């Protein structure tokens, strides 16, 4: 059906060129598996945009398409374009994308385990050739994450989950990105840690004026943090709008915030499920 229409009509009412724009993006794995089916979305400069969806909805695939790291998993963009400042970047190599100011913090933290904390950060600053800039960014990361300073010379593989997530975020900040892509920063972390990470992301996005594209399964976090939200199901955007409005949406409350009345097997839930199915077909 007309997924593009959903994106087009519900896009924020601004005339500015969005910082990042996906137009009808389609991604295929192994030349047969269609993981992303015509997704259109816009991320406005200076905002936090969330992409919400369950496991396997295609969230990570979209992010990998943006940072051009699909090939290692045999995926490719089969249709549509990705634009940065209105400039197509769909076919650029991964390192070029990074140089254009897009930084991707991968899911599951994925720090360089055999490298020290410091080396992880330095590796992330690879595209920065100005040494003084590297040092000043290192200092900045230490200010945001004082905890990392105490672990500076330790191997990243030995850090706790929360510390690794801090390191992963710190790595993302090394390049002074214009767009920071966060893939499930809350995944597998203790609630205290999640709060800490959430606080830091908010702080960073405000103080460093970084635009953030946040991917989450945890709707509460995604909606709290973001200004605008897209809901992805089965590789399609099924709903988008201001996060404050989305949070009030009855279906979202039930499916993602777990606020269903009664048990999940009752009639109401099934009815909602049917209604949700209608959006997707």
């Amino acid at each position: 059906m007309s997924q593009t229409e959903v994106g087009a009509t519900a896009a924020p009412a601004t005339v500015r060129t969005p910082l990042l724009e996906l137009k009808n993006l389609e991604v295929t794995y192994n030349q047969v598996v269609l993981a992303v089916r015509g997704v259109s979305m816009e991320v406005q400069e200076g905002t936090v945009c969330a992409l919400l969806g369950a496991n396997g909805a295609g969230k990570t695939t979209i992010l990998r398409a943006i940072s051009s790291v699909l090939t290692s998993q045999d995926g490719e963009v089969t249709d549509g374009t990705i634009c940065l400042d209105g400039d197509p970047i769909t076919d650029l190599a991964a390192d070029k994308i990074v140089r254009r100011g897009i930084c991707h913090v991968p899911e599951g933290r994925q720090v360089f385990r055999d490298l020290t904390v410091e080396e992880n950060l330095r590796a992330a600053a690879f595209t920065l050739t100005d040494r003084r800039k590297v040092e000043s960014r290192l200092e900045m990361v230490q200010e945001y994450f004082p905890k990392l300073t105490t672990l500076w010379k330790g191997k990243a593989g030995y850090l706790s989950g929360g510390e690794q997530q801090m390191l992963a975020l710190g790595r993302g900040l090394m390049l002074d990105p214009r767009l920071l892509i966060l893939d499930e920063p809350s995944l597998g972390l203790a609630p205290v840690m999640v709060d800490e990470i959430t606080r830091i992301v908010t702080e960073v996005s405000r103080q460093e004026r970084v635009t953030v594209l946040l991917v989450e399964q945890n709707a509460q976090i995604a909606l709290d943090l973001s200004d605008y939200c897209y809901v992805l199901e089965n590789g399609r955007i099924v709903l988008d709008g201001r996060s404050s409005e989305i949070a009030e949406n009855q279906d979202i409350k039930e499916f993602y915030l777990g606020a269903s009345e009664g048990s999940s097997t009752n009639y109401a839930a099934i009815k909602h499920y049917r209604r949700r199915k209608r959006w997707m077909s």
Partner: protein
Amino acid sequence: MSFFLQLTISGLAIGSVYALIALGFVVVYKATRVLNFAQGDMMMIGAFVTFTLSSTHGWPFFVALGVTLVASFFLGFVIERLVLRPMLGQPVFSIIIVTIGLAWLMRGIAGMAFGHSEQRITFPFSGESVRLPGVDVTLSAENIATLTMTMLTFLAFFVFFQRTRWGIAMRATASNQDVAQMMGINVNRISALAWGLAGVVGTLAGVILGMLGFLFIHVGDTALRAFPAAVLGGLDATGGAVVGGAILGVAETLFGGYLGGAYRELMAWILLIVVLLVRPFGLFGSKDIERV
């Protein structure tokens, strides 16, 4: 005692060669997870080029060596570009087979270009030696040169991997290629650089062997003898290469010296098998953690 020390010294010298060859294996393996069976033949080519420049064309030894080192960097670079890059994404097994093919190709070309006879690279200070006072041990000029060159090379590699932007990027790529890419590291360049460096250490090893009188087109087989050194140290550990090489060299020479030459050859393989049984990832290698 002095016999033991003398054997140890020559063991260390031959161990240096193993260490350098092992370093070649390690660099490529670290960056690309490929076992480069062409390492020995890259070494042979480098040695022959140095020999041709210095002995046939009369260039001063160190100039010839310097030029060859630069050239071998580009040889490695070109091999990666022409042969390995197109194989990207193919199963590692096929890539390894390709390196074996590459090895025999280089050997064939070397046979045509440099002939099949055995040669020796003349080291400028050849014949001179230093007697260590107190103990009855003689260090030949070749021994000293070998040990110095190896130590300097490993020092340089250590600094490169620990301190430089490219070195850290190379380790990051070895650790997680996918994420390295996301951080803007061009993994293709990293792999080309690794092959270039492998060419450089290969040439160094080959030239040292050449100085010791081992220069013929099949000298690349020696690299297979150094393979246990790389495995012993751990295929992904730079420091492991030097320790592995030293252990192997000394063990070989001691066994050969005390038990007779026949045991010498056996030692490397006994060590390899024992190490693989006890510590499959080597003394300093990291256990592979599967990440999906």
